[in-house]
């Protein structure tokens, strides 16, 4: 048995504790030092978090009744809606947004998003796994009562064998989850991200965000000695839109697949932590940061989208391609050229096809129950 101490508090510490205690039963002795202040207010989560809930055996019902979970279908940035799930469908192997442009943008892009259609009607139902159903293009995130959600995760963690750490516990590995502040070992991102975002309004199906103070950057090392920094303890890019929690979730998965207690595993953990934090940082910059001199990888992405609407996806991306398309457009970054492969069909035919797709989505949205 390896004794692991999780330091921090609230959602971050208990989510880590619950996942590690569940996956490491009989191998890891998980202790949580819940030092933080009790969390307040509500937080936003992305669709992918539901996968973690499934692995931890947390049902939608208990999330709703115990943690005040409410579904959300998208987020608003810069007055533009960014819906979850798929927007449109690729035609003939060419991404949807190319056809949408070739057809002369007959309506706003989100007209081809079932999440957007449902949200504008105040309707909701969970998506479907059946690829033939239009509902398979739908995905939803959550907003949660932070304190109640932390309690729920704590109950799961304790049930899986995690313990509340005694003072002066002797441990072999310490996992930091508490938000960090810039120190000597700090890579500063504040030139690109002067503020972060926090949840402003989640009363409807689309959440909105407001600026929040931020010292953006990441630590130079995720692993130093027997201390491992994950989530907010490792990187700060102010993504209260669910991005912070999403990156933490990725780090927890990485702890499970690559527990960094040996040198090569620690090196790989470092490499993956840095890459995914930087990809998440790039999306934060794209959504609310300063684009005058973006980091190299983001500059390449922007240049490719501006040139021909290509979405470059690197290793360790944390956001899907369609999220990038919406984010580019929301920042006014539009392609100079139409992809020639989207011009193989006459525009009127593409317009007809798009019109039919849109009607199917509208009808599907109309048929959903009121949220």
């Amino acid at each position, binding site marked *: 048995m390896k004794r692991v101490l999780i330091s921090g508090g609230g959602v971050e510490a208990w989510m880590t504790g619950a996942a590690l205690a569940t996956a490491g039963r009989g191998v890891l002795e998980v202790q949580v030092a819940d030092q933080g202040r009790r969390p307040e207010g509500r937080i936003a989560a992305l669709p992918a978090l539901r996968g973690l809930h499934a692995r931890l055996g947390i049902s939608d019902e208990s999330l709703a009744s115990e943690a005040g979970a409410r579904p959300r279908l998208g987020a608003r940035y810069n007055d533009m809606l960014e819906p979850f799930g798929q927007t449109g469908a690729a035609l003939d192997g060419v991404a949807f947004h190319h056809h949408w442009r070739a057809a002369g943008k007959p309506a706003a892009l989100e007209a081809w998003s079932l999440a957007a259609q449902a949200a504008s009607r105040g309707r909701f139902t969970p998506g479907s796994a059946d690829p033939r159903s239009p509902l398979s293009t739908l995905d939803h995130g959550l907003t949660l009562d932070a304190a109640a959600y932390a309690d729920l995760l704590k109950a799961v963690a304790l049930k899986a064998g995690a313990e509340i750490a005694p003072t002066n516990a002797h441990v072999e590995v310490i996992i930091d989850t508490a938000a960090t502040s810039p120190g000597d070992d700090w890579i500063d991102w504040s030139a690109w991200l002067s503020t972060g975002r926090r949840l402003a309004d989640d009363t409807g199906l689309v959440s909105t965000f407001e600026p929040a103070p931020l010292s953006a950057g990441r630590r130079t090392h995720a692993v130093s000695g027997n201390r491992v920094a994950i989530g907010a303890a490792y990187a700060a890019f102010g993504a209260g839109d669910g991005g912070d929690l999403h990156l933490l979730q990725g780090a927890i998965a990485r702890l499970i697949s*690559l527990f960094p207690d040996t040198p090569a595993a620690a090196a790989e953990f470092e490499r993956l932590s840095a890459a995914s934090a930087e990809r998440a940082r790039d999306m934060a910059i794209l959504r609310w940061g300063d684009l005058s001199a973006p980091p190299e990888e983001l500059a390449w992405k922007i240049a490719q989208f501006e*040139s021909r609407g290509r979405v470059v996806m690197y290793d360790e991306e944390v956001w899907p391609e369609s999220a990038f398309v919406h984010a580019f457009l929301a920042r006014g970054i539009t392609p100079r050229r139409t992809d*020639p492969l989207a011009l*193989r069909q006459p525009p009127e035919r593409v317009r007809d096809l798009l019109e039919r797709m849109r009607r199917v989505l509208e009808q599907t949205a109309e048929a959903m129950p009121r949220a």
Partner: protein
Amino acid sequence: MTSVRKIVIIGGGTAGWMSAAGLAAVLKGLPVTIELVESAEIGTVGVGEATVPHIRDYNARLGLDEADFMRRTQATYKLGIEFRDWGRRGESYIHPFGAYGHTIGGVPFHQHWLRARAHAEAAGQSFDPIERYSLPIMASRAGKFAPPASDPRSLGSTYNYAYQFDAALYALYLRDYSEARGVTRTEGKIVAVDQRPEDGFVTAVTLEDGRRIEGELFVDCSGFRGLLIEQTLKAGYDDWTHWLPCDRAVAVPCASVEPPVPYTRATSDQCGWRWRIPLQHRVGNGYVYCSGYIEDDEAAHVLLSKLDGQAQAEPRVLRFVTGRRRKAWLKNVVAIGLSSGFLEPLESTSIHLIQVGISTLLELFPNSGCEAADQDEYNRVMVLEFERVRDFLILHYHANQRTDSAFWNDRRTAPIPESLAYKLALFRERGAVVAYKDGFFKEPSWLSVYLGQNVIPSGLDPLVEAVPTVDSARVMAELKAAVARAVQAMPSHEAFLRSLVGPRVPA
């Protein structure tokens, strides 16, 4: 900026006709014409007759009928590659097109197998090799084949397949396909290349008989020499022979003496390795070697002495320099095939790299200006593909345990790229495979070579101990039995092949 109206493909080998067919199929509906220039005087290099499963996507995009394609190209099915004598002499492993088992308790299957192996060794007991848990490997060993099942829950869906075919016949088949879709074929030897003075874009090529062929986009499939990309545009070449020093191959087809097996074989030899590719009508053979260690005549002699059946031609020697073109797309010239770089066919990647070149060109299909952004992105993608295949090939050489020849001793002790040393260190420490998105070879491929060549990690994933030994032993036993049953139920490769393509006809 205007759209591309005319594409000229230089060279009519496998790369040329695959490019012509791929472009003709996908660009249908656009006002663009395609002309392919080839010279009967300049022989084509058969870039290896074995493929990887992506070839099925390419064929599907063209809408080819599998039975027709297999009949026309003398194709057989391929479930993987057998590597003989790459670890210790006398050993054999198969690199399959499919995963080994499935996760147990969220922990990768091979971790459970490594634990069981360690326990058995400590107790002085025997243990099952990991191939027992792989359906495509066990089917290969039994000479059987059936297409994968479509139900993702079925064991029969856990593998994929490729083909072994006559690349010259495949090129002819695609030539028919292309010509039927409007591609013009022009025969002639290129004697001059015209460039636009202001920016060096290629504007036309001139043939020996004086004909001038103009184009806006040129696809250079002229082979090693890179007629446009190198001889005209001087794109440069990164030489990788310090890592992969084999620089020649001698090839010869021979008669079959047994029904074709559903896998390619790569056997290590004193100064390189030999391929064996069973087709319907014959067996393709070759010896890839390093000229610093063996003379051409001797290599040909070794190859001929180890054939299954009667040689059907004179052995042919090919020369190459392993590496990649610094810019595979430069100005309005895109190099596809050997003109874009060369990696020995140890893992059947030549045709795959052609295909990645074609599909990436289509994803970035330019207008007549060939914007720098398109070139840059194409080159970024191709560098990743080439480098990741390169590291995987070097692993085979580096992890050899042959001590009977200078060549193999040198390969084992030669420096390796840092990117490979990093991957090896992680595997040696705890059996974890470095993951990436772009690049063909993923976890099961790396595992097969590591384990097949006795790179056994000193530690394990610590979380494997969260699954009780008895639980993983039970799941492993069930899986092994299920694989054996599934193989039992499969038809022989020969029988399945004949049911699809019809009775054997003399070549």
